[in-house]
């Protein structure tokens, strides 16, 4: 009795604890009373991106994480809120966006993080709107020594073919007109700003401080072998205390970079053409001046860096340089209406299923069905709380597959009760009193429940670790429910049975109790004694002792030993 109440008290502690955790989360944090829904129930778009890989090429976890960060930056830049970006498996990235993304957003997500070095041909302080305020910029003549007459039919191809990437001849009247009207604010919008490798590019600095006309790509980002942020060293080897970014090029990059710096260094420092721009995804992340000809492929970018900004630039150089493009492997749009219909129907199916299970339980186990019903309700409450808490803490989202997992688990949960009740009935058939039948049935039944739940849990864990996508959500709920099943059957169903066994209704074997010994075939022998049914009167001899010993668990062996010891004690 005491034990039963203690188990129930523990159960109460668990339920109250979970409720308090969730309530606390709702009051003081971002938790909600209902679990968050996955895309297939809430509506939205899910994109699965796979890297475009050369054969034999692999993706490291670090690269994938960096790619996720880059994609997140890109989506945030489009103003889409609540996007979820996760890695899936060893090389895929899953992007979940509420609503339907437009083409430019899609384009932006897919394009590879392209890092390139372009020489600066012309630069200027960006104006917020080039159209409303006529630009007080110097005319092309001043800056480039070339006359450009803005006419309706602007010449779009260079009249004199440019000799190198810094050649002002790249700047055609059409390009300059485009440059004049280019608004840095548009860069932040969904359009990815790209130009072919061999063409000039009009762009702005990240943050929109400066506008640039850049020459064709001279060094590709892939040639960067490494980039590190570090404190700038003086020629004596001491530290200047200023942060800088050190780049290491590979052989190809070293050669190209040497050629570029040689040319750029020839320009006076006041000339914008002395500078080269580092362009990531079409936006200038830095445009340092050239202070020396770098022939060893190890340039240092210095400036007004903080430790943080130096680290960011180094990361951008190192990872942005990945030749990692992504292609959309699958794209799935679910309208919000369809999602909610699915959820409603799923819940409806669950309720019908549950009702049928409860009806069947009552038909088979009479009033014991109420124990099954109560156990299911407790299991339902605990499962709900755990899922709501995980949804808050771990970002778990309930998907349609997860709902299916929950519905399916009703059967597996009820099976534990069936196994237990059938064991109790077996013990009653052997002529035991109900109180001892409950205990004996529990000892045997719980072993079976643990063993079978272990198999089920193992399946859930392996599926969760190894499987992808939807399967994960399904495996997750299955695993949670298996654990809840063990909690409920040991801390609720069993103590309830212990208590019920002492009640008049169940203990007295009322015909409707589902535990009526007479109906169970145990024959009454008078004064709480039942004759053991004929065929079950197994002579408990030790003839098959060796088989028994072989199949015994340690616990059973110990129990047998102590029983034998006890028996001896009685005999003597």
């Amino acid at each position, binding site marked *: 009795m005491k034990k039963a109440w203690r188990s129930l008290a523990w159960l109460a502690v668990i339920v109250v604890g979970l409720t308090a955790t969730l309530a606390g989360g709702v009051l003081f944090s971002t938790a909600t009373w209902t679990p968050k829904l996955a895309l297939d129930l809430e509506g939205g778009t899910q994109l699965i991106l796979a890297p475009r890989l050369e054969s034999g090429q692999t993706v490291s976890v670090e690269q994938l994480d960096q790619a996720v960060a880059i994609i997140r930056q890109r989506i945030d830049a489009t103003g889409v809120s609540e996007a979820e970006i996760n890695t899936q498996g060893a090389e*895929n990235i899953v992007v979940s966006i509420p609503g339907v993304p437009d083409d430019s957003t899609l384009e932006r997500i897919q394009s590879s993080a392209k890092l390139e070095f372009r020489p600066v041909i012309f630069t200027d302080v960006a104006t917020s709107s080039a159209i409303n305020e006529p630009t007080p910029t110097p005319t092309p003549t001043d800056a480039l020594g070339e006359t450009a007459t803005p006419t309706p039919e602007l010449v779009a191809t260079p009249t004199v073919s440019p000799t190198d990437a810094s050649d002002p001849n790249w700047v055609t009247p059409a390009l300059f007109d485009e440059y004049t009207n280019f608004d840095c604010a548009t860069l932040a919008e969904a359009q990815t700003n790209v130009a072919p490798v061999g063409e000039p590019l009009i762009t702005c600095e990240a943050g929109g401080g400066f506008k640039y006309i850049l020459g064709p790509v001279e060094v590709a980002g892939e040639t960067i072998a490494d980039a590190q942020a570090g404190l700038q060293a003086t020629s004596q080897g001491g530290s200047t205390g200023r942060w800088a970014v050190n780049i290491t090029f590979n052989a190809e990059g070293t050669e190209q970079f040497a050629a570029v710096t040689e040319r750029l260094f020839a320009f006076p420092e006041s000339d914008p053409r002395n500078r080269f721009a580092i362009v990531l995804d079409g936006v200038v992340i830095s445009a340092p001046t050239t202070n020396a000809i770098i022939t060893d492929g190890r340039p240092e970018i210095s400036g007004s860096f903080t430790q943080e900004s130096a680290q960011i630039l180094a990361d951008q150089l190192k990872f942005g340089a990945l030749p990692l493009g992504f*292609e*959309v*492997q699958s*794209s*799935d*749009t679910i*309208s919000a*209406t*369809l999602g909610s*219909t*699915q959820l409603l*129907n*799923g819940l*409806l*199916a*669950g309720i019908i*299923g549950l009702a*049928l*299970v409860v009806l*069947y339980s009552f038909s*088979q186990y009479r009033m014991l069905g109420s124990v099954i019903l109560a156990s299911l309700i407790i299991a339902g409450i605990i499962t709900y709380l755990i899922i709501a808490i995980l949804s808050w803490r771990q970002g778990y989202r309930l998907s349609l*597959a997860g709902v*299916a997992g929950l519905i*399916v688990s*009703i*059967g597996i949960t009820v*099976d534990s009760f*069936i*196994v237990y009740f*059938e064991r109790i009935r077996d013990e009653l058939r052997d002529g035991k009193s109900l109180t001892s039948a409950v205990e004996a049935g529990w000892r*045997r039944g719980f072993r*079976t429940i643990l*063993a*079978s739940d*272990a*198999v*089920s849990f*193992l399946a*859930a864990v*392996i*599926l969760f670790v190894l*499987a*992808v996508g*939807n*399967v994960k959500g*399904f495996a997750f709920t*299955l695993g949670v429910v298996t654990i809840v099943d063990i909690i409920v059957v040991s801390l609720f169903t069993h103590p309830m049975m212990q208590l019920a066994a002492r009640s008049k209704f169940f203990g007295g074997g009322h*015909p409707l109790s589902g535990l009526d010994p007479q*109906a169970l*075939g145990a024959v009454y022998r008078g004064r709480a004694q039942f004759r053991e049914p*004929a065929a*079950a009167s197994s*002579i408990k*001899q030790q*003839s*098959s002792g060796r088989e*028994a010993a072989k*199949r015994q668990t340690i616990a*059973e062996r110990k129990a047998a030993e102590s029983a034998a010891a006890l028996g001896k004690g009685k005999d003597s």
Partner: protein
Amino acid sequence: MSRLTEFGNDLYTGKRSFEFVGRRRIWFTVALVMIAVTLVGTVLRGGFSFGIEFSGGSEFQVANPNTLPDGSIDQTVAADAVLSVVPGATPRVSIVNNGDAVRIQTDQLEVSESNTIRSALAAAYGVDTTEVTSSFIGATWGNDITRAMLTALVVFLFFVAAIMALYFRTWKMSVAALVALAFDLAITAGVYGLLGFEVTPAAVIGFLTILGYSLYDTVVVFDKIRENTIEESGTRTFAEAINLAVNQTLVRSINTSIVALLPVGSILFIGAVLLGAGTLRDIALALFIGILVGTYSSIFIAAPIYALLRQNEALVRKKDKRATEARSTSGAVV
């Protein structure tokens, strides 16, 4: 008490008994015939029909489309809308979601084509473009799922065989359980192939769940076998002890299957009637078949195979001999 309870009483005492182990030839033959039928049927039908998640393609769904005067949905306008954008396409149009939505599947299309088709479909059915959803699945996606699934399968089988061997202290139970599992998977897959149900990722989830369920069910039966073979007296042979265990857990097996089938059946019903094709129906369908077959295999395959595997062990033979002798001398009826 219900009739099943009385039935349970008789099974428990041995008053009524089914020859699960003794007539194993029949059960094995039935199993082999089932495998042969589904296998031949699948081959004759031309293999499995995979969903577009595996073959790759584009799919559109129009929610709440305008209906014809008689309340039905005109399916030809959908095909026309697709063909107006991509002349060579082969659209497959079907009504889903209890007649509330039209589903159009095509070969893989370009993103720009998909968007144009979305607008065309919205115009054709007089709905807003937001009511038209589009999905596109690259053919490699299905391969990725399959690869992940096969890895999971191998790892799971390894671990579960090890755990069962440790728990039951005999590898023969693991073998018997895995044979039953293989049967379950073969038949479930076979039914899909035989009846031409579409294999979707959701169906794959269903298959994977059968793994857990089938073994779960077998473990319950085997635990009773383990118990009976420990405690069993000298009057029963090893095979008879196993058979009694299976009989004694028969009511549990029936009840469990029914209780497991009821919720799955209601998903299947709701899914098929109200929703049409979809995640819920696909999971439920695979599970429904799997649970039925899993119950059969635990009783008619796993237990007899275990008896078969152990019948030639010296220890078991000795015990059987003793049991037969004990019976002939005492004249006890079993």
